[in-house]
């Protein structure tokens, strides 16, 4: 084993002092803010929570070995002070930061790291994120005995051995599911740990009235000095987005967690005073239509390309108040590996008709488009339906609840699925995250998330190659991923439609860089680094 000094490692070494310095000189500590959500917060257990609401709450309650610079997709060390990677890319040795304490006052050690990884991969935990750890040696036999690939070298050193090189591993170590939990608290609360979370994070949970509100209190002993700025965050749940906006306008709410409701968007953006408090940013999201490549008529690539050419994406974007940019490939533009030079299929109904005729469908055909039944998805599906009708394809809409659409897509019953509302926002900022479950052969199995049932062995082999790099940010690797997605677009199992932009509204007193309010990782906002100006 030797020190590994590729670009990332260097950046990380330089980054160490920066962790202490990335505090904002203009920030004033203190103050409390109010956030609202419509849906209840489910669990705050990092091994289980996988929602829009609890994702960044968990990020503020717990920490992982790795982390991201606030407001960016750039990795930095978290609970690990430094790390080394063996030459073959299989052994990661993490040196833990000394003196980090859990909210219960006990110091965090390497044993806790091992316990947490053993726990999340133990099938008894039922973690939706267990699959992310599949590259750790011993994952197949994970259970009560723990992972054989995770070893405690000494109280401040953890050694993790992989069964295959995995470029995304450092991202996985920054993922919520890998966050470190204290064994004694998990054992004390058992299945209710998610309601009584204890972590090392910038905030601790002070109070939780189920179905009403949660209060997060500043952790005065947080290991990044000066962070967080806020004394407390109050989250009120069960609030309709329209009502949350009214309360914001009335000065009662600082951040409406569900964003600006579609019906109010034009009104807000038309008022200069309110529009000035809206932060716009990209997010790691793509909205797409899947076409089941295993069944006629979508088994013919001409038909799938024709669908890509039939879509008037600009018009579809108008339906969501222009809150998106047209997409021509699976990756969103803010994702590393996005193919900037790729032109994609342009809007060309006549060309699409010609392609259909070549495929033997000169008179079109009838099919079904599955769509989740919450606004704006049925309206988007109607626009898609009209575009398809213009080239002779008659698509009937199947408006169903989310779970039913997922089921139909997974079972291969749905010829076409509009992905909107199914939550396909990247788990971590790496191009591989859009491939495996949704476009790779593994996800094409019955019940998988690859609803196009697309499986190209050549592309799968390239993906394995791309993920065998040790440095996730290696330009060669990112180039390879660009090529993979361009190849996929030639086969056209998807018709990418748009990348949604994020619009976060805040009260006049909220301070901090705009990037914190459209943080690509901490959604909706980075609670640790925002502050209030009064």
């Amino acid at each position, binding site marked *: 084993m030797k020190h590994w000094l590729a670009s990332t490692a260097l950046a990380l070494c330089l980054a160490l002092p920066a962790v202490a310095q990335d505090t904002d000189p203009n920030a004033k500590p203190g103050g409390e803010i109010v956030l*609202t959500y*419509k*849906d*209840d917060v*489910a*669990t705050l*257990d990092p091994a*289980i929570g*996988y929602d829009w609401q609890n994702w960044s709450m968990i990020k503020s309650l717990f920490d992982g070995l790795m982390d991201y610079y606030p407001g960016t997709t750039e990795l930095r060390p978290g609970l690990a002070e430094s790390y080394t990677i063996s030459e073959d890319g299989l052994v990661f040795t993490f040196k833990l930061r000394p003196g980090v304490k859990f909210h219960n006052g006990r110091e965090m050690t390497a044993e806790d790291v091992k316990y947490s990884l053993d726990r999340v991969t133990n*099938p*008894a935990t*039922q973690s*939706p*994120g*267990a*699959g*992310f750890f*599949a590259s750790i040696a011993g994952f197949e036999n994970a259970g009560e005995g723990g992972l054989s690939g995770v070893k405690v070298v000494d109280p401040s050193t953890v050694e993790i051995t992989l069964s295959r090189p995995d470029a995304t591993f450092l991202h996985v170590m920054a993922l919520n599911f890998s966050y470190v939990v204290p064994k004694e608290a998990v054992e004390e609360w058992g*299945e*209710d740990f*998610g*309601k009584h979370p204890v972590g090392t994070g910038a905030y601790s949970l002070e109070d939780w*009235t*189920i*179905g*009403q509100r949660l209060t997060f209190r500043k952790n005065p002993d947080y290991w990044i000095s000066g962070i967080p700025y806020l004394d407390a965050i109050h989250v*009120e*749940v*069960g*609030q*309709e987005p*329209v*009502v949350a906006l*009214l*309360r914001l*306008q*009335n000065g*009662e709410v600082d951040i409406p967690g569900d964003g600006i409701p579609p019906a109010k968007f034009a009104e807000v953006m038309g008022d200069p005073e309110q529009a000035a408090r809206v932060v716009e940013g990209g997010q790691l999201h793509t909205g797409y239509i899947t076409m089941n490549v295993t069944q006629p008529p979508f088994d013919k690539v001409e038909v799938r390309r024709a669908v890509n050419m039939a879509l008037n994406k600009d018009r579809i974007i108008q339906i969501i108040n222009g809150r998106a940019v047209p997409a021509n490939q699976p990756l969103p533009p803010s994702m590393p590996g996005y193919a900037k030079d790729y032109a994609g299929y342009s809007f060309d109904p006549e060309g699409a008709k010609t392609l259909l005729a070549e495929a033997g469908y000169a008179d079109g055909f009838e099919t079904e488009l599955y769509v989740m039944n919450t606004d704006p998805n049925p309206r988007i599906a109607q626009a898609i339906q009209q575009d398809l009708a213009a080239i002779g394809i008659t698509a009937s809409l199947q408006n169903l*609840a*989310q*779970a*039913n659409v*997922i*089921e*139909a897509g*997974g079972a291969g019953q749905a010829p076409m699925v509009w992905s909107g509302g199914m939550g396909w926002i990247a*788990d971590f900022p790496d191009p591989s995250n859009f491939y*495996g*479950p*949704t476009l790779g052969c*593994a*996800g094409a*199995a019955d*019940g*998988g*998330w690859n609803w196009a049932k697309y499986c190209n062995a050549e592309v799968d082999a390239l993906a394995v190659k791309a993920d065998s790099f040790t440095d996730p940010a290696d330009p060669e690797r990112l180039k390879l991923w660009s090529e993979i997605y361009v190849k996929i677009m030639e086969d056209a199992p998807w018709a990418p439609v748009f990348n949604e932009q994020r619009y976060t509204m805040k009260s006049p007193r909220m301070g901090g860089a705009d990037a914190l309010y459209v943080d690509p990782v901490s959604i909706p906002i980075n609670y640790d680094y925002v502050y209030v100006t009064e």
Partner: protein
Amino acid sequence: MAVYLLRRLGQAVLILLGVSFITFILLYVLPADPVRQIAGRAATAQTVENIRQQLGLDQPFIVQYGRYLANLARGDLGRSYLQKTDVAELIRSRLPATLLLMAAGIFAELLIGLTLGVIAALWRGRALDQGLMVTSFVAVSAPQFVIGLLLLYVFAVKLGWFPIGGYGTFAHLVLPALTLGILGSGWYSRMMRSSMIEALRADYTRTARAKGLGRLRVILRHALPNAILPIVAMIGIDIGIFMGGIVVVESVFGWPGMGQLAWQAIQRVDIPIIMGVTLVSATAIVLGNLLADLIAPMIDPRIRLR
């Protein structure tokens, strides 16, 4: 009376058993897999099967249902798949809010509905009557969402008399209760109007008037008690309507009741919560009807319980 009560309670248990069976079978045949929802998109086929086994969802229907009933008999409603909390605890934390809102809503709709109904009956055929009946028709047809937001906007945002949604004080209760009250009052005012008109025409009213009693006394002592009788039965049925319709109002006013819990659970096939909420609601409806039947003879001695 005791025999009657026992028989009715026995019937109630049978009804609840039927409700649980039908709901369970509907959720069983539903083309949506709760295990997929729990396992997430990164899950391997092995993880999915593992979770299915742990939850016992790989068992045949009759085994699953039998287990559910056995747990139910012990008072165990199960654990939410996605919230990872005891369903009983989730319902317990939300039931008081729903019951409070329901009581306040029924009070508001009776107050508004009965008053308007009586006024309309007394001024039958005049402009006032027709105006009130048109208004009540609009109230019955208006979407709860619209009425709720309208009240919220005018009385909370613009006038600042009440808080903008939330839960806790009497002030928080007024607008959601009023929303339910306005919507429900439409039915009650129409019922009350026709019932009152009938009572005013009845022989006993004529007799009372012939005795030389004052107009007010005739209305309050003779016509009103008789006219109100059919309304009482309606309140029992109304509890069922409330259980279904309260979802929207709870959502508009951020009221932490059971409606919101049910709505979220349905979206994500959280079967234990759906079952729990359905059973609790069904219990409320059955008890509501029973209560209405028990009250009826107290108001009208002609009715006998058998």
